[in-house]
């Protein structure tokens, strides 16, 4: 009796208390703690320069982490994101050099690259039913290869100066880059999509069980297809951003970024098995890795040791929930055991 009741009651008292002790809240507490410790103990950290440099550094990862969180929550993965960004950069460079179009049109066409790449991923995964891990490992290499074919080992660097300066410009004296406004809009879009629409809530069901999701009326194939188009488009936007930020289009832009994105998403409390995670947690995860790396570099921690720190953090973030649930299960079993003993000892005389 007690066993069947307990989940309902736990859920009933969730609300605010749960939100304040949940895993995404913990990430944000840790983030705040790291920021405070850094401001006190790391020389040069407490400055508006930090805000500017740090924001520009995390923007690419922050942006791709949004659709990536949705993809992983629905139980899939997309490893081709960094290659899509590279291919976009290459296409943008060649178009700007050879087509003579206006930069606005060049950027629009470049973002279409992401749509096409995403559609191709989505087609292979949903229509042909192939596993996303295998498909996107393939397209990771394929898109990067195409980038090399498109632009070769060349670089295109003569983009309009105004656009380069715009990308790096700050809002007044705050040090916050102007492009951050745009980033916040994208974050808000994905937060609303995941947490406040039937489509988004359906993704959790999808991550738990594909069959169950189909039964409750979620169009599994269609949902997944659009998720991959989503990662494609956002990766392309990041490709454009990187190109303008570096003032240089090349085939190697964004190399290796897919792993940083996935690491940050997992650190933000998204389960690699799907069905669990939230946008605030992911934003916290991205910022935590970004701030920690930035602060440790300023504190003169050698680059080699730095990888160890971020790596351990990631392992910890994956292991910690398992330890917590293991501990919970132990406590629950012990209690059930005790209750059973109590009821049997107190119940027997009456019977």
């Amino acid at each position, binding site marked *: 009796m007690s066993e069947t009741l307990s989940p309902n009651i736990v859920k009933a008292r969730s609300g605010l208390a749960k939100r304040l*002790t949940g895993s995404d809240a913990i990430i944000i507490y840790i983030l705040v703690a790291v920021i405070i410790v850094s401001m006190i103990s790391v020389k040069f950290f407490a400055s508006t320069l930090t805000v500017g440099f740090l924001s520009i550094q995390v923007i690419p990862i922050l942006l791709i982490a949004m659709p990536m969180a949705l993809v992983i929550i629905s139980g899939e993965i997309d490893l081709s994101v960094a290659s899509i960004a590279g291919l976009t950069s290459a296409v943008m460079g060649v178009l700007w050099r050879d087509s003579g179009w206006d930069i606005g049109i060049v950027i629009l066409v470049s973002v279409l690259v992401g749509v096409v790449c995403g559609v191709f991923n989505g087609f292979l995964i949903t229509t042909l039913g192939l596993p996303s891990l295998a498909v996107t490992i393939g397209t990771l290499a394929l898109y990067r290869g195409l980038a090399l074919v498109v632009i070769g080992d060349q670089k295109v*660097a003569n983009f309009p100066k105004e656009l380069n300066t715009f990308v790096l410009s700050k809002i007044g004296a705050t040090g916050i880059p102007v492009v951050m406004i745009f980033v916040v809009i994208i974050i808000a879009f994905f937060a609303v999509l995941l947490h406040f629409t039937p489509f988004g809530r359906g993704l959790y069901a999808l991550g738990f069980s594909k069959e169950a999701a189909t039964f409750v009326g979620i169009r599994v194939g269609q949902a997944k297809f659009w998720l991959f188009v989503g990662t494609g488009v956002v990766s392309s936007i990041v490709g454009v951003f990187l190109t303008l930020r*570096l*003032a240089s289009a090349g085939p190697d832009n964004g190399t290796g970024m897919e792993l940083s994105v996935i690491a940050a998403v997992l650190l933000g409390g998204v389960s690699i098995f799907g069905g669990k995670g939230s946008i605030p947690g992911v934003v916290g995860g991205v910022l935590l890795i970004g701030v920690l790396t930035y602060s440790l570099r300023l504190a*003169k921690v050698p680059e*080699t040791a730095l990888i160890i720190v971020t790596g351990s953090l990631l392992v910890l973030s994956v292991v910690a929930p398992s330890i917590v649930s293991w501990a919970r299960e132990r406590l629950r079993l012990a209690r059930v055991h005790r209750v059973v003993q109590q009821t049997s000892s107190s119940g027997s005389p009456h019977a």
Partner: protein
Amino acid sequence: MELFSRKSRGGRRAATVAAVAVSVALLATGCAAGGSTDGGTDSAGGGGDNTMAFLPKQLNNPYTDVVLGGGEDGAKEAGFTSQVLGPLEASASAQIPFIEQATQEGSKVIVIAANDPDAVGPSLQTAREAGAKIVAFDSDTNPDYRDIFISQVVAKDVALIQLEIISEQIGGAGDIAILSATATATNQNEWIKYMEEELASNPDYKDIKLVAKVYGDDDADKSFQETQGLLSSYPDLKGIISPTTVGIAAAAKYLSTSDYKGKVALTGLGLPNEMREFVKDGTVKEFALWDPAQLGYVAAFAGKALVDGTITGAEGDTFDAGDLGEITVGEGGVAIVGPPTRFNADNIDDYDF
């Protein structure tokens, strides 16, 4: 009811313990990091606010380590405290966070070997606006983004020194051959072109005849076989020039075990560590290469001159480079470190690269 509240308390306790553990770990790393910063500040105290940041293409590269060693010596002599900041992989954008870090720390000079001449541009621009002087070395950035570029050597000097050495060793007369890298190698072909021009025009070399050019493709085995082939097809060969480190080492290896040892002269561009045994056993008398440490050394002094305002990086500016004397800035803000260094039995043990 009591049962349920106890249960949730237990769960929350576990979560709290985990959270506290993570925070403690992070605070510990934060504090440790803070401690090392203090250490850094102490040592910086001696040099005042004169800080110089070296940004190599990537860390943990043996050649780069020699360049940076020279840079740190130069910075010290010039009265600067220096630090090395760099990525573990040599990708275009990987250097940017380090340029930003140097900017934030208020480095007076940023000495950079650019992985991509343009991608580092916007960040260097920001650093300049914050007051830093930019010295490019080893690999140039777009000239818009730096004050001066320190280049190792002039191609023509590299070609001529090898001819000089071979001419000294064969007594200014006889047949010579060249063992190069690949047939399309840009550097080697440029040097060979200068050598051929010099042989044709300089009366000192009128008795020297270039009889063959062979290509070992910078592959040790192929270079070894090409050397063997050269010596059997040209029995009168007096000397071999190999303007590539792989080629000269392979040729020396062949000569050292053959009858030609000490009879056929060998020179070219070699690494002291690879050539040491062949110089010691008499196979090779003398060879050349630039000393990478000098590159860093001169870059440090160029940074000092820029900060002091004695130069702006314009053509014709001259600055003092410590032990290496005075250096003049050439066209396009490029300064050349100097002629290549000759390595022989007397000095080879002074070098480790």
